[in-house]
């Protein structure tokens, strides 16, 4: 194999010396070197690998005025000068690695070459985790420069733990980079995460539109993207094991998601929680003014003594209470007030709790059931993620895009807390879980109130890696996110950035040229920071192999909201394709809607063989309306005259 020609030569002057961490080199005017290119400096006894961070061009012109004089003030003449001025292309490069690494010395004045595949691997210290009996490389994209193209890998131990963990991605919206990059990376993880490092699953929160609603559907990929997939050793396929979760709309039967096309209903299930599930995270929904010490004590009392168990209080009722739903809770409160007003003759204290506190807690909890209608159920039977049964390489997408922001917080807080608890107990079903959260600046803002979700994200970012709970987060403006949350992300990806954002102090370490490149980064390109890489690196990644939200909605238009009966029929049809509205109508005619909803949820949860029969049985015996014969009332006996007359 012939040695490629050199592209430049290191130069060092007193003003621009070569140091152990930076050097300068010149190239011919026409050269493949550009910002982000990896180069190799060869000198006797030492090889240095560096990445180009800045570039300069200048001529032997002393001052601009002399160009004006030469052209006699006419810009048109300036281009007609008989001789082109001597021009220099000078580049600054940051050292990625020196071989040998000790003693660490200034970069020698050697010849500069473009790096090849092997050089890139050494420069980024990928040889440490790609070689050996148990490699841990996860493909992230390709580095391309001067006709060379090298796959870039992240170290799974530093992406999913335990060495480091978490990933954060920043970039302006609408350039199909953040979501696409995370989709590709998840796909890459699922296909290449080494078995000797355990099992992995992912939970994604779809927070806007149809972004993540079609991850199980194949996309039409251009040939160039397929070539990139092949180069990276990743199959261009959508996710094979995906489960979607979405709460109902307020009607309790139409799902609150854009993934309502009947063809996709097989793996789209309702997300329904009961009072127990919600009450454990009441703190998420109630602000500090709501939950003072007194209210907190009452809520704790309800959680510990009342909800989900038998509660005896002879003063309220002769029969024990079984509070399992918001309706039961409302009945419980009503009994307390009746007791205080009637039996206790206007007393203000019930079991050390003041009536005002009880009224306040009743109002706030009652509000939750209103705000989260569709998510919370009155029958007390939840439909939840498969806790304890997470499968390896399974993807769980929770669609919260249509929910009230506060309810989104509730969903997020509870699911992440559950993941954490199960991972602590090692009974989730997998060893690692990636949680993907978009719009992180909303959940963990740098400024503003310290919320439950923010505290939880901080805890997750600081301690999650020990548990295998890994946060993949994205936002438009990294500077607007709590510094400790993004700071704990071992790996950071940067798409095209807004100039205002790049002007914030967090980007001060980047050279002006790197910042300029970030401000104009094309689709499908990212800058990567990873613990093994001593400098940020630009990579290109292929489009995701799954259908994008926009195309998904076009190909699988969401079903329109239908009347109650038709919605129930559609949901049952997901379990038994033979069920039609015509068959169902006689079954539900005259039934109360809450009874139908309860039967539907139970049927969906149990998934019986004979769906319609089970559903009908759940409705219970029909209580026929008793039609009694109208009986007349005997007329008053007339006395025949006005008695007052």
């Amino acid at each position: 194999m012939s040695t490629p020609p050199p592209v430049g030569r290191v130069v060092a002057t007193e003003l621009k010396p070569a140091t152990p961490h930076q050097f300068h080199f010149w190239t011919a005017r026409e050269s493949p070197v550009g910002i982000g290119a990896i180069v190799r400096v060869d000198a006797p006894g030492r090889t240095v690998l560096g990445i180009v961070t800045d570039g300069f061009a200048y001529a032997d012109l002393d001052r601009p005025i002399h160009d004006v004089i030469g052209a006699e003030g006419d810009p048109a003449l300036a281009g007609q000068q008989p001789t082109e001025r001597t021009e220099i292309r000078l580049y600054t490069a940051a050292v990625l690695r020196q071989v040998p690494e000790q003693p660490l010395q200034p970069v020698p004045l050697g010849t500069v070459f473009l790096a090849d595949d092997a050089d890139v691997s050494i420069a980024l210290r990928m040889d440490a985790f790609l070689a050996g009996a148990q490699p841990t490389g996860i493909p992230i994209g390709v580095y391309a420069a001067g006709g060379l193209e090298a796959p870039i890998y992240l170290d799974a131990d530093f992406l999913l733990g335990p060495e480091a963990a978490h990933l954060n991605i920043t970039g302006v919206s609408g350039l199909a980079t953040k979501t696409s990059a995370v989709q590709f990376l998840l796909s890459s993880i699922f296909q290449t995460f080494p078995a000797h490092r355990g099992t992995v699953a992912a939970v994604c929160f779809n927070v806007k539109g149809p972004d993540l609603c079609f991850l199980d559907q194949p996309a039409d990929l251009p040939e160039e993207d397929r070539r990139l997939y092949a180069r990276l050793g990743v199959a261009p396929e959508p996710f094979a094991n995906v489960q979607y979760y979405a709460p109902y709309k307020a009607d309790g039967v139409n799902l609150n998601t854009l993934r309502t096309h009947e063809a996709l209903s097989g793996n789209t299930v309702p997300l329904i929680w009961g009072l127990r599930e919600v009450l454990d995270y009441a703190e998420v929904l109630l602000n500090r003014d709501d939950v003072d010490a007194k209210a907190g004590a009452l809520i704790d009392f309800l959680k510990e003594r009342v909800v989900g168990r038998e509660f005896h209080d002879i003063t309220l009722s002769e029969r024990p209470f079984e509070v399992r739903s918001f309706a039961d809770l409302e009945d419980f409160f009503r009994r307390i007030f009746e007791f205080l007003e009637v039996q206790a003759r206007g007393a203000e204290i019930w079991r050390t709790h003041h009536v005002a506190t009880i009224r306040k807690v009743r109002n706030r909890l009652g509000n939750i059931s209103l705000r989260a209608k569709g998510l919370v159920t009155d029958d007390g039977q939840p439909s939840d993620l498969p806790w304890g049964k997470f499968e390896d390489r399974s993807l769980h997408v929770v669609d919260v895009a249509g929910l009230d922001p506060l309810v989104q917080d509730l969903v997020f807080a509870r699911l992440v807390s559950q993941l954490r608890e199960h991972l602590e107990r090692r009974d989730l079903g997998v060893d690692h879980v990636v949680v993907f959260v978009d719009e992180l600046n909303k959940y963990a803002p740098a400024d503003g109130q310290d919320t439950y979700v923010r505290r939880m994200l901080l805890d997750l970012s600081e301690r999650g890696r020990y548990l295998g709970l890994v946060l993949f987060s994205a936002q438009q403006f990294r500077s607007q996110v709590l510094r400790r949350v993004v700071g704990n992300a071992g790996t950071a990806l940067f798409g095209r950035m807004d100039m205002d954002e790049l002007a914030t102090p967090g980007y001060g370490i980047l050279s002006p040229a790197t910042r300029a490149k970030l401000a104009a980064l094309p689709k499908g390109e990212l800058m990567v920071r990873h613990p093994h890489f001593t400098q940020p690196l630009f990579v290109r990644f292929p489009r995701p192999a799954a259908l994008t939200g926009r195309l998904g909605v076009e190909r699988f238009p969401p079903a329109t909201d239908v009347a109650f009966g038709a919605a129930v029929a559609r949901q049952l049809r997901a379990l038994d394709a033979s069920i039609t509205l015509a068959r169902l109508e006689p079954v539900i005619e005259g039934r109360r809607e809450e009874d139908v909803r309860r039967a539907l949820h139970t049927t969906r949860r149990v998934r019986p063989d004979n769906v319609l029969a089970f559903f009908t049985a759940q409705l219970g015996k029909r209580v026929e309306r008793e039609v009694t014969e109208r009986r007349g009332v005997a007329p008053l006996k007339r006395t025949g005259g006005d008695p007052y007359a």
Partner: protein
Amino acid sequence: MSGTAVGGPEPWPGVVAFLDGTQRYEVMAYAGSSPVVVAEIGAAVLERRNRHLHVATVARRRLLIARPEVLLELGETAAGHEAVALPEDGPAHPVHDFVLARREVDRARGRLEVAIGHRYREISDGWLIVDGTLSESPQWAADPRMLGICKSHATLPFAGTDLEAYLRLPAGSRSPVFQPAGHEVAPVCSWALRLWPWQGKDLLHGLIRVEAAPTLETVAHADQLSRWLLAERAPVSTPDPRWDRLLYGIRAVEEYLRASGSR
């Protein structure tokens, strides 16, 4: 004498080359009171094609200049250098000998420039512009496609009102063609050309003296050649203090020789 307006600048047709030489010298040691001077001389031709200058030919020499007996003593120490003996026409004197050594360097550089010019002529018959006089070589002086550009005006061809008119040529004008005195071995034609306006500056600002082969054709084409030279004003040769008279191509040769020479 009256000046002639030559017309606007015109780009030089075809290939043009520029020739110049550089020299650097220093006293390395003293043998008794006589200095031992080392020098590096270089000469090169840069050829312009498609508005870019490329090295067409280059030569360098290292000189060791001293009195003959000193050169004998140095022996092997002088390896890699061309030994040049100083004349022994008097007792050794540090200043006088150094002046003599400097002259030897000048002469050697002149010879090297001539040699390089001849070498270039063997490979190209294009226009060759030389920094300085063509009288260095009878062949140069007779070459119809060579021009010498003299920036210094130590000797002036006219006197009285003619000299005044000569020194006050307006920008873009030339003097009549004349034959300068003192060039008997290699006679040339010559004329002065004002590249930049002198008003507000020095009388010699922007004034060059052009030398060409002493033929009728040269006289006939003096205006045309002047127009081509006017186009060479740009790019301006700053920051060189002689920028008003130094053609960019000539400066580029100097820069190349300085940058690529040994330290």
